[in-house]
């Protein structure tokens, strides 16, 4: 197998760990509903919300935690969240309809992203807050409000292109938002259309893992809101988007061993660790490593609520180094956040059945074919490298030693690899076993899944624990009343 197995074991919370230790549930489920199969755990979402709330409490901040719906299409997750005090951030007409139908009242919904007229109309009609991308969209909204005699629309301006003095913090260009340099034009538009729109605050969402960039943007928002106040407006909210990240792996040392191994493999000083010697963005130019590792930092202790805590404690250079949380609080602003992936941490997994295990004649890695396409388990699409957990069909089967495998999907296509990485498993899988990909609920479940070659997309079930046992129902059948059964069941997270 070529040296020590380079595992990348998933980090598992209590709920997922317990679920994976329930083969008597998982096997009949996949037998009945087909492979692949997605399992979501709504109660975990409420628990994660509490973690974010605790960070708010620590900094004495108020304001909404909104779930970025785009990260998962599940109804069960959304309905479970509707039973808490959280809000939802919707990015399409369908998502807005879904959120309203799940029980979110308009004061708990924000419409963001690119909007078509129907989306904008329904948002204005139901009085949900609209995060406007540009002055043009603001005008479009104002005209809709007047034409259809709708109530004044609450708007957040989405800003981009923040600048710093002193050290220049570079940021990737974004296709969304109004450059902060042009905010004056945006404010003029707000004032011109004040009969139709009511500004409630400023927003940004940066696609970066960098805390400094986000801190720069938050400072920029505070400056713009200060200008709003000097013009007599009364903004109340700063919306800092999401991107707080997830810590996928259980063991940081495994991640370090693996990435060092990958570097060595690209440099040719150890056998390849990938299908076809793929370098995940690294390349070898005459013995020197070039390029950059295009992988999600899968071991990331500072993620989710802890990342938010770090950001809020970050000193704001242009405000005498005062922490951002203190500034938000002192300026009497509500803080809104829109985590997607981070709120869905540990909220689900994807099961795929092993169809074939082939031993190449010349030895080497086992070739394992799954009843799933790569797009059903989109971890690789997001650059997340993480081992699946083998759930054997026969629990009594004698466990042999570790094996190295390649995981193939079921499409008739060379590139349908579940991952290009050589995966090390502690035991050899057999046909009929399940491979469980943990922590796929955030973006890796249904965001990319297709019906290519008339192959099915995964069904989705919701699972919860009741009286020490796991219960389940189809995702679409789940309502907050489903789990727990008895009236007065404490849904948690509600305030």
């Amino acid at each position: 197998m070529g040296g020590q197995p380079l595992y990348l074991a998933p980090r598992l919370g209590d709920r997922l760990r317990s679920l994976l230790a329930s083969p008597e549930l998982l096997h009949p489920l996949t037998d009945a509903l087909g492979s692949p199969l997605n399992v979501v755990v709504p109660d975990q979402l409420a628990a994660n919300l509490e973690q974010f709330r605790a960070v708010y409490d620590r900094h004495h901040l108020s304001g909404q935690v909104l779930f970025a719906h785009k990260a998962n299409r599940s109804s069960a997750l959304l309905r479970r969240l509707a039973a808490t005090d959280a809000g939802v951030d919707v990015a399409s007409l369908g998502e807005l309809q879904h959120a309203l139908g799940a029980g979110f009242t308009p004061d708990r919904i924000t419409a963001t992203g690119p909007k078509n007229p129907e989306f904008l109309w329904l948002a204005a009609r139901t009085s949900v807050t609209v995060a406007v991308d540009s002055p043009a969209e603001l005008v479009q909204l104002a005209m809709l409000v007047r034409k259809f005699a709708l109530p004044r629309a609450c708007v957040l301006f989405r800003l981009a292109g923040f600048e710093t003095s002193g050290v220049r913090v570079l940021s990737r260009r974004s296709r969304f938002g109004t450059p902060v340099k042009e905010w004056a034009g945006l404010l003029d538009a707000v004032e011109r259309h004040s009969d139709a729109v009511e500004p409630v605050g400023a927003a940004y969402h940066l696609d970066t893992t960098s805390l400094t960039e986000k801190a720069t943007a938050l400072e920029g928002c505070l400056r713009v809101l200060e200008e709003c106040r000097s013009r007599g407006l009364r903004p109340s909210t700063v919306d800092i988007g999401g991107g707080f990240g997830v810590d996928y792996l259980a063991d940081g040392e495994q991640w370090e061993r693996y990435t060092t191994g990958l570097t060595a493999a690209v440099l040719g000083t150890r056998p390849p660790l990938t299908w076809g010697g793929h370098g995940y963005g690294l390349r070898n130019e005459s013995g020197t490593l070039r390029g950059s590792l295009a992988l999600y930092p899968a071991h990331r202790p500072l993620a989710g609520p802890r990342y938010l805590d770090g950001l809020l404690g970050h000193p704001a250079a242009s405000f005498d180094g005062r922490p951002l949380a203190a500034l938000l609080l002192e300026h009497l602003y509500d803080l809104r956040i829109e985590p997607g992936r981070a709120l869905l941490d540990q909220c689900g997994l994807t099961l795929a059945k092993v169809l074939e295990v082939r031993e190449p004649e010349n030895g080497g890695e086992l070739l394992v074919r799954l009843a799933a396409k790569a797009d059903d388990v989109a971890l690789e699409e997001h650059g997340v490298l993480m081992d699946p957990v083998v759930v054997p069909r026969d629990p009594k089967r004698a466990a042999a030693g570790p094996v190295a495998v390649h995981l193939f999907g079921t499409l008739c296509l060379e590139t349908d690899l579940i991952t290009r990485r050589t995966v090390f498993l502690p035991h050899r899988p057999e046909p009929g076993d399940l491979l469980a990909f943990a922590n796929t609920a955030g973006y890796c479940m249904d965001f990319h899944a297709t019906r290519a070659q008339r192959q099915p997309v995964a069904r989705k079930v919701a699972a919860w624990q009741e009286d020490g046992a796991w219960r389940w129902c189809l995702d679409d059948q789940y309502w907050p009343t489903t789990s727990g059964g008895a009236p007065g069941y404490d849904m948690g997270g509600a305030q």
Partner: protein
Amino acid sequence: MRYDSITEAIGNTPLVRIDPAVHGLEHIDLYAKLELLNPFGSVKDRAAWNMTGLRLADAAEHGSQVVELSSGNTAKALAVLAGMHGLAFKSVTNRMRVPEIKDLLLLLGAEIEELPGQSECLDPTATDDPLTLFHRSLSEPGSAYLHTDQYFNPRNTEAHLTGTGPEIVKDLDGRAPDWFIACVGTAGSSTGVARVLREHDPAVQVVGLVAAKSDFIPGIRTIDEAHQVGLFDPGTYDSIEAVNSDEAIEGMLTLNRRCGILAGPTGGAAYFGAVRRLKAVEADTAERRSAVFIVCDRVESYVSYVRQRRPDLFGRPRRANSPADLTDAEVRTAPAIGVTQARTWIGTGAPLVVDLRSPYAFAALHIDGSVNIVDELFEELVHGGLPFSRTRPVLLACPVGEKSARYAALLTRMGHPDVRSLAGGIIAWRDAGAPLVRD
């Protein structure tokens, strides 16, 4: 010693023997090459001068800007050299994690650009990493840059091939040491010196030190990062070993406190790695041997780096009248007043209203007639005693009534008879519909 230019003071640094009572090696003489005594403060002065030198006059003629990917010492040296020739200098980096170094560079007139962080929603098909974009911008038509390219520029290594290496041999009476230990950053100094030493004695053992992978030591790369350096050739080193930041600081403290060498953490890492390595091999040797390590730069720029990792080193005596001394019970029972009663009280004109928020927040909205003393300043004031006359009642306000309660408790303990905290703070004030003004 008289020089016409400060650049003539670069190099010819002392080689100082470390007292055996400090390192405890019985058969090995350990020498420190004091690169921190270069005029701009580090070993990078040599490379920076050798890479620019004659090219600066030409660059000045074309109005070029000097650019480098550097997070510290190279940037510092280049900023000075560029400034001496009337040129601008820009440092591009995503590794500059020591705030004092940033400030020092800005002070020296450098421009700093921080590269963007990794994308959160990763696009694995995007191949344009920030460095590719950096190199593209350098070669754009019409751009005038002098890019020193320290990680690939052979003139970096050459500075040590002609300077540092021969100086060591000369100071050891024409002999190479048995061991040479150096941290790997650009690999320029270790590669250049190693080559010179091996020419004198092929048996010299070269130890390269890298940072432990999840750790950060300024100026040292991890083993994976070292592979990205064009000058780095694993064949240069007989062994490559990792040092973590705790060990680097431990080594630094030994040099600072016991040897009179004001080395930074990089030099500390070299000392620690050297002693660890030499202790392991000393048992095998009965003869007198020698070893040299490089002290790359000075401690002064790393105070915040050390404070973050070793707050115990900065223990200060407790000060009088500190809000930290209060008990929970004192804070809980601090005199407080609700919004409605506070408004009535203020209406009598009696209390001085002190707003503890930052001046920016105060300027935006505040209680009419209030005075702004930001909490940090207020804490300083009360260390010295009561800042108000006892006959003047005081109402303290903060965002949620938490800090104001602490200070109300503290002032009460200090003997003020009528100080109260605004319960629920300015937020409760606003929520009750009470007026807030801007001036």
